[in-house]
C-alpha cells in the first residue's frame, strides 16, 4: 500500500530563481526503507522537510503530497517523525528521561501511559543504562539515538531522517543505522532517509532514489541503482558507492554488482584467482625531513582524580609529514593534538619542539575560529593583528581567496557557510599567520567525498609550501588515500605506526574496505585503485 506519494513537486526558495525541487515524483510503500542520496545541494533536505508540514521551508510550492493514501486528510504532527543532522541542537530538556517524554507531554497523555512508553522505548533502543543521566553528559552517538527514541515514542507511521549519521563516528553511525533497521523490521515503521555515505546505508535500504539538481534521477533497489551509476559513469555519485561496487566497476565487471565486502571478495576470487599473490610494494619511504617534534612518554589527565587520557605516549613528527592519527571516539585524539602544540602540558614526559616552531589548530567545529560577522572582516582583522599592512593584507586575502576557493563567500556570515566552505575559510584564516605545523582535528566530519578530495588537495598544497600537517581522524578511507604516515591511538598510547600501505596491510579489522575485500588474494592493496591495478587495469 502506498503510504506517501509525491506528484510533480516543485519548490523554489524566496528570492532565488533556481528551483530547489524541479518536478519530483515519488511513491513510498508502507514499511519500506527508502534511501535518498545525492550530492550536497541536490535538494534532499528540502524534499524531506516538505514532507513534514511543521518543518516545511517558506517558498513557492507546486504539486501534490499525498499522505496515508488520502490527499484531503492532513497528517497529524505525531504521525511523522523527523530526526535532523546535528545531534546536539535537537535536544530540548536536561534529562534523558524527560527528553523521551517530551513529545508525549505535548500529546497530553496521562502519566502512566508516558511512563510505559518511555520505558518501552528506552529498553527497545538500549537507553536503560543512561536513562537517568543528564543530556549534557552524553556523546554525539548517544544523543542521536536519544533523538530517534524521543521521536519514536510518538509512534509515528513515517520516520524521516535527514543525514542522521553524518556527524557521528563510524561505530556510532553503524549503531544508529542498526537501531533504525530494527525499528523498521520489528515495528514496521516506514523510513525515508537521506545520506551521502552509502557504504553502510546501502545495507539496510530497500530502495534508493538518486537526486540531482532538484530532480530524481533514478529509483530502484540498491544493486540496480549502483549498476545504473556505474553505467552512466556519474563521477559525483560513484565516489560514494561501496568499495566493492567501485572495484567491480574499475575492473570492468559484468553482471551482478557486489555491494558489500563478502560479495566483493567472492567477485574477486571468481574473476582474478589467477592473479593471487600479487602485491604492491610499500611506497619507498617518502623523503622525510628532520625531526620537528618529539613526544616522549607523555601522561596526561584533565582532573586530579580522573583517569589518564594519554598513557606513556611517544611519537616523533618529521618535517614534511602528512601524519594521520587514527582512533575511535574518546581515545584522546583531540587531547593529543593539544599536547603536540603545547596548549596543554603533560604531567609526565616531555614535548620537544624544534626551535621557533609555530602551530595552528583547526578545531572540530571549524566555525569556532571566526569572531566577526563577515568572512572578509574576520580575515582583514587577522591580517592586521599579524602585523600586515593594509595593502599586504589585501594581497594576502586575494591569494588565499584563489587557493581556498572563497570567491563569493567573503561577504557572507561565517555561520551561513556549508560544512566544506566553513572548513576552507577556517583553513585560510589559519594560514594567514603561516604556521610551520598545521593540526587538523577530525576534518572529514560531515564532509562529502568531493569535499574530502578538496581537503586532501589543500593539504598537499600546504606540504608543498613546506608545512607539516598532522590530522587526527576516525576516517580510515581518508587516511589510507591521502596520508604519508599513519599512527593508531588506542587507550591513550600509539599502538602502531607506519606508512599507510604497510600500516593498513598489517591490520585486519581496522583497515579499509578495499583491503578487506582483497585480503588473502593480494597483499598491501588498500584502495580501490590499488586493487584495480593488481587486477591488471
Amino acid at each position, binding site marked *: 500500500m502506498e503510504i506517501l506519494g509525491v506528484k510533480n513537486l516543485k519548490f523554489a526558495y524566496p528570492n532565488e530563481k533556481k528551483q530547489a525541487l524541479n518536478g519530483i515524483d515519488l511513491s513510498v510503500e508502507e514499511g519500506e526503507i527508502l534511501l535518498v542520496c545525492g550530492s550536497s545541494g541536490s535538494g534532499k533536505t528540502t524534499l524531506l522537510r516538505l514532507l513534514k508540514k511543521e518543518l516545511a521551508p517558506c517558498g513557492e510550492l507546486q504539486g501534490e503530497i499525498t499522505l496515508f493514501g488520502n490527499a484531503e486528510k492532513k497528517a497529524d504532527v505525531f504521525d511523522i*517523525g523527523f530526526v535532523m543532522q546535528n545531534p546536539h541542537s535537537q*535536544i530540548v530538556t536536561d534529562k534523558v528521561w524527560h527528553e523521551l517524554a517530551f513529545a508525549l507531554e*505535548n500529546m497530553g497523555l496521562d*502519566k502512566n501511559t508516558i*511512563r510505559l512508553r518511555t520505558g518501552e522505548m528506552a529498553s527497545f533502543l538500549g537507553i536503560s543504562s543512561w536513562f537517568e543521566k*543528564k543530556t549534557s553528559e552524553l556523546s554525539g552517538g548517544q544523543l542521536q539515538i536519544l533523538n530517534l527514541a524521543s521521536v519514536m515514542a510518538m509512534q509515528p507511521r513515517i520516520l524521516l531522517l535527514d543525514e542522521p549519521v553524518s556527524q557521528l563516528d563510524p561505530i556510532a553511525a553503524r549503531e544508529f543505522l542498526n537501531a533504525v533497521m530494527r525499528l523498521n523490521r520489528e515495528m514496521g515503521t516506514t523510513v525515508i532517509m537521506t545520506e551521502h555515505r552509502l557504504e553502510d546505508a546501502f545495507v539496510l535500504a530497500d530502495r534508493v532514489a538518486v537526486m540531482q539538481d532538484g530532480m530524481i534521477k533514478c529509483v530502484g533497489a540498491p544493486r540496480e541503482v549502483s549498476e545504473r551509476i556505474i553505467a552512466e559513469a556519474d563521477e559525483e555519485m560513484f565516489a560514494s558507492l561501496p568499495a566493492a561496487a567501485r572495484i567491480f566497476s574499475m575492473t570492468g565487471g559484468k553482471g551482478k554488482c557486489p555491494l558489500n565486502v563478502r560479495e566483493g571478495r567472492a567477485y574477486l576470487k571468481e574473476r582474478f584467482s589467477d592473479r593471487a599473490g600479487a602485491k604492491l610494494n610499500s611506497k619507498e619511504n617518502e623523503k622525510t625531513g628532520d625531526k620537528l617534534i618529539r613526544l616522549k612518554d607523555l601522561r596526561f589527565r584533565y582532573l586530579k582524580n580522573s583517569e589518564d587520557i594519554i598513557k606513556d605516549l611517544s611519537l616523533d613528527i618529521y618535517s614534511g609529514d602528512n601524519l594521520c592519527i587514527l582512533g575511535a571516539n574518546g581515545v584522546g585524539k583531540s587531547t593529543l593534538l593539544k599536547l603536540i602544540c603545547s596548549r596543554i602540558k603533560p604531567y609526565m614526559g616531555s614535548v620537544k619542539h624544534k626551535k621557533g616552531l609555530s602551530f595552528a*589548530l583547526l578545531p572540530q567545529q571549524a566555525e569556532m575560529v571566526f569572531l566577526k560577522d563577515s568572512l572578509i572582516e574576520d580575515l582583514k582583522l587577522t591580517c592586521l*593583528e599579524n602585523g600586515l599592512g593594509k595593502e599586504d593584507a589585501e594581497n594576502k586575502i586575494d591569494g588565499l581567496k584563489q587557493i581556498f576557493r572563497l570567491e563569493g563567500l567573503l561577504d557572507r556570515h561565517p*555561520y551561513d557557510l556549508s560544512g566544506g566552505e566553513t572548513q576552507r575559510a577556517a583553513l585560510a584564516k589559519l594560514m594567514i*599567520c603561516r604556521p610551520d605545523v598545521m593540526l587538523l582535528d577530525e576534518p572529514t566530519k560531515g564532509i562529502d567525498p568531493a569535499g574530502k578530495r578538496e581537503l586532501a588537495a589543500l593539504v598537499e598544497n600546504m606540504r608543498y609550501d613546506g608545512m607539516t600537517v598532522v590530522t587526527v581522524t576516525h576516517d580510515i578511507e581518508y587516511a589510507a588515500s591521502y596520508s604519508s604516515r599513519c599512527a593508531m591511538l588506542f587507550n591513550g598510547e600509539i599502538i602502531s605506526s607506519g606508512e599507510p600501505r604497510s600500516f593498513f596491510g598489517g591490520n585486519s579489522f581496522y583497515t579499509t574496505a578495499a583491503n578487506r575485500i582483497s585480503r588473502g588474494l593480494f597483499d598491501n592493496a588498500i584502495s580501490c585503485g590499488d586493487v584495480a591495478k593488481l587486477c591488471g587495469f
Partner: protein
Amino acid sequence: MQRFSAFHPLASFLYFVSALCVTMFSRNIVIAALSLAGAMLFYAVLGLRGGIWLYFIIFILTALSNPLFSHNGVTVLFFLNGNQITLEAVIYGVYLGMMIMAVLMWFSCYNDVITSDKFLCLFGSVMPKAALIISMALRLVPSFISEGKEMLEIHSALLPSGKSAIKRIKRYAAVFSCLITRSLEGAAERSDSMRARGYGKGKRVSYSRFRFKASDAIMIAVSLLWIVFMFFFGGAMEFNYYPEADPLKFNAAYIIAAAYFILPSLINLWGELKWRYLASRI
C-alpha cells in the same frame, strides 16, 4: 541509604518550607537553637561538608555586630566608645546568629535533597512553560560553558598578544558575543525540533517520574499539623528580648519542635540501620 530523599518532591519540599517558616517566624531563642541543631545534624547525615566555616563566620559576625547597633535593654554590661553594650542585645545577637545560620544550613540540605528534577516536578504542573524554560536552560548551560571555554582557548592561541586587562576583557567579550550568535542560530533548530514533536499543538502536560506514595501523604500531613500546632497552639513562637529578656522556661512545644527538626536525620539513620541489618543477613 538516603530515605528522606526518596519522598515525593512535594513531601520533602513541604518539610523544608515548614521548618524554614517556623525558624524564621519564631523569635524564640530555644526554637532557633533546636532548629540549628536539627539542621546541623541533617547536614552531617547527608554527608555534606564545605561551607560550614562560612556559616560559623556569619554566626559570629551577626552575634557580635548586634550589640554594636542596638543599645536597647536594661542590663548594661559595659560601655564602648560611650555606647552601652547590653546583655539583652548580646542575647538577641546570639539568637539572630543561630537563626540565620539555621536557615542557611537548612538551605544547604534543601539544595542536596531538592534537585532540579524535583523542583521542576513541583512547579511543572502549575507553570509548565516556565518549567520547560528552566529545563532547557539547565541543558544549555553546561554546553555553553564548554563551548565558551573552547572558543576562548582557540582565540587565546590565535592571538597570544593580549596580556593587559582591557585586552583580555575585550577578547572575552568578543568570544562571548560569538557564543551568543552560535546559540541563537542553534535556537532556531531547537525550536524546529520542538515543533516537529508537537510542541504548541493542544494542551501540554507535565510529566514527572516521581510516584506519590502513602508515606508521602503521611509526611505531608505531619508537616501541616506541625506548622499549625507551632503557630497557633504551642505558644513557643514568642520571646521578648527587650527591655529584659524572658527567662527560659520549659514548654512541651519545644519537644515537638525538636522531634520535627531531627525527623529527616532519624529517617535517614533508620534507613541506614535497616540496610546494615539486611545486608548482614544476605
